[in-house]
């Protein structure tokens, strides 16, 4: 059976109900970079990100039976698992330290605003990773690498028109995925 054609929700349900290691592997490949990138950003430390990302995917395997399709998408559930794995490693208890009185607080984003931004980045990364390879590479070079379309054409040694076509097709495909409301 071609597991690659299954939806995220179907894969997660196979992991939960059949303990399907191959379905888990497909899910891993779809979300590894999104999960790892999220963990690195939250930890600000790539040294511990490997262990935390490993723990996050282990949690996916253990907790798959807890996923309920009616409560939300598999992507949202995976995001929450990864985010909680990262946040759990940064929570500390107040320690008694000798020092000056605390400074005034900075007006930074509230925790929920950060979570929304992180979820959006997670969805974008996962959606880009799901693009066909030729569309993904032009999208990544242009939007992550900051190259112009002419520079992308030079880098990949393909005509500028081909870059434009693949970019447009990739963006349309992303619009189809990211345009869906996250329940």
């Amino acid at each position, binding site marked *: 059976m071609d597991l690659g054609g299954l939806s995220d929700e179907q894969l997660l349900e196979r992991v939960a109900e059949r303990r399907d*290691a191959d379905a*888990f*592997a497909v899910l*891993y*490949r779809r979300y*590894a*970079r*999104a999960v*790892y*990138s999220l963990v*690195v*950003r939250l930890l*600000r430390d790539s*040294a*511990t*990100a*490997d*262990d*935390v*990302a*490993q*723990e996050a*995917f*282990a949690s996916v*395997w*253990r907790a798959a039976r807890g996923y309920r399709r009616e409560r939300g998408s598999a992507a949202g559930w995976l995001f929450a698992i990864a985010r*909680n794995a990262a946040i*759990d490693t*940064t*929570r*500390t*208890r*107040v*320690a*008694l*330290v*000798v*020092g*000056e*009185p*605390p*400074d005034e*607080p*900075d*007006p*930074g984003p*509230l*925790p*929920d605003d950060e979570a929304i931004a992180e979820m*959006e*980045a997670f969805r974008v*990364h996962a959606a*880009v*990773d799901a693009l066909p390879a030729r569309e993904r590479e032009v*999208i990544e070079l242009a939007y*992550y690498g900051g190259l112009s379309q002419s520079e992308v054409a030079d880098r990949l040694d393909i005509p500028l028109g081909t870059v434009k076509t693949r970019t*447009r097709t990739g*963006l*349309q495909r992303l*619009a189809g995925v990211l345009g869906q409301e996250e329940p």
Partner: protein
Amino acid sequence: MSDLERIERMLREAPAPVDVPDALEAVARRAAVGDRPAPVRAVRSRPRWPFGRLLPAAAVMAAAAAATLLIGVGGRTPPFAVSSSLAMTGPAGASATVDFGPADGGTRPILLHVRGLAPAPAGRYYEMWMRVGTDAVSVATFNTGTSGTATVRASLAGGMSWRSCWVTLERVGGGHRTVLRAA
């Protein structure tokens, strides 16, 4: 804004993803599906309780109850000179005030007053947090009485530069949501 323009904005606003180490897939799969590999670095995680969830739940409830009883009976007047205050608000009229005292011997006392917050259900408790740099630092755990109020005393380490504070409703074993945030 067209769909494609919106997608382009999302791509530009999302931080560039981080490439996943090649070895992570095998390690994550072994951790999930097979024997857990020996971690290269210890992953800080919630403590594993040998007696299931009853022991941590009982301990947290007892601690929260003790903290509340110790302070709550005495009323709202803080036992220190208040140098500054911070208000928090939440849904359904829930609110809180945090009074900060002067630094004394390297620590700074704070007094949290909560109003209009229903007692946490069984297996859950409230926790106050402050953001210090990129870390979420736990300040106190507590529960409210049937009146929906609580007064909790805690200490902050001197010299901490904090950005915001909030209160979450925590579930023993994992999971939380924000119930109060700085106004």
